[in-house]
């Protein structure tokens, strides 16, 4: 009676799941089924991830208007699966389109952390890249990359909507290469700058 806890943990369902899981895993590895599935499914999921980039509907400054313009008939980002969702939980891309003030540094980090992995960050416009015309200001950070990691930089003040759509294209190229890697594990991968090829 003294060690009921031990008895309890011996035939724990969690352990059972782990054992069964491990055995299955080993079996799959040995028969190379796992390899087969991961390569094939990986290509499919990679395709899905890059074709459907839901962007957080976050308008900071000038570039937000160009972001809106990229969804309009002339540019039509919806052709490439770029949709705008208002909730960070349902978004894949954080499109930073303006200067980050000291007051907004905390909220933007929070928005970034609320997004589920795999997630990507695009710095749109000079302000988000380096502070832009406000680099001398007392209240503006020198680029959003001082607080969150950035995957694609789109220069311009503001960039044209075509450049934004091209930036999404560049992000897709990057996703092909890195897959759906978590944003913390992309250290070796250099950010992409639109127009620098």
């Amino acid at each position, binding site marked *: 009676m003294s060690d009921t806890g031990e008895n309890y943990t011996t035939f724990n369902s969690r352990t059972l799941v782990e054992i069964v899981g491990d055995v299955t895993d080993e079996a799959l590895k040995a028969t190379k089924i796992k390899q087969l599935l991961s390569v094939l499914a990986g290509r499919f999921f990679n395709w899905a991830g890059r074709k459907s980039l839901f962007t957080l509907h976050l308008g900071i400054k000038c570039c937000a208007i160009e972001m809106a313009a990229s969804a309009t008939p002339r540019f039509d980002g919806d052709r490439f699966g770029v949709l705008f969702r208002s909730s960070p939980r349902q978004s894949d891309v954080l499109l930073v389109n303006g200067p980050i*003030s*000291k*007051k907004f*540094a905390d909220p933007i980090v929070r928005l970034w952390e609320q997004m589920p992995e795999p997630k990507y960050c695009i710095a749109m416009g000079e302000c988000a890249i380096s502070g832009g015309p406000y*680099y*001398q*200001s*007392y*209240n503006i*950070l*020198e680029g959003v990359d*001082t*607080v969150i990691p950035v995957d694609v930089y789109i220069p311009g003040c503001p960039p044209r909507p075509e450049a934004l759509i091209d930036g999404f294209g560049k992000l897709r190229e990057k996703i092909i290469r890195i897959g759906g890697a978590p944003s913390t594990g992309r250290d070796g991968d250099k950010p992409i700058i639109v127009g620098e090829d």
Partner: protein
Amino acid sequence: MGTTVTKEQNSAAAKAVVDNLSKRFSDAGITTEAVAHAAGKKFEFVRIICAPEQWRAVAKHLKNEIGVNHCAMVTGTHYPSGGDDRGWEVAYHMHRWPIQDVEAHTMIVHKGENLEGDDIPMEFEIFIPLAAGDSPSVPSVQDLWVGADWNEKETWDLVGIDFEGHENMHRVLNPHDSPVGFHPLQRQHKIRYHDFNEMYDDPQGFDRKPVDEGRVK
């Protein structure tokens, strides 16, 4: 096309306001003059220079007798080298417009040349020089014009000029956790990279560090 106020109306109205003000405040040492803009249509506006002690009285007179109904902007300026009696200055810019409430299903369409007296639109520029010192202060006109409320908050936030009697003063543009006494538009605060030579020496900016490095984030 035809609604515009004419220049004659404008100068007559400016003269009337100046007469009114100088009659009312003749012995208070308040300067009142009608000044013409240097460009554009060269319309005249009324410039008042008064001491902070008289400001409430002037403001009440402006609001009640002259009909100034719109406080456009409040500007605080810091003059570190301005001398003892003009270390700071507050400039109020106000408008008088012929605007009143209407009944339902009606509207009022003014025509410039039909206006007369207090209805003629007019700009006002009130300078209040303040003595040099660490705690400049001006009486607030928050209760007279609601529009002055956030303008004064902003002036305190950015320039550090205190408004006596202003209720609920708080920072509006700078973060709430800014250091006490940090008012960025005071002249002793320099912008980042204010020394331009540094930029020419290092155009790529490799060695450049922001002045407030370490405090950002």
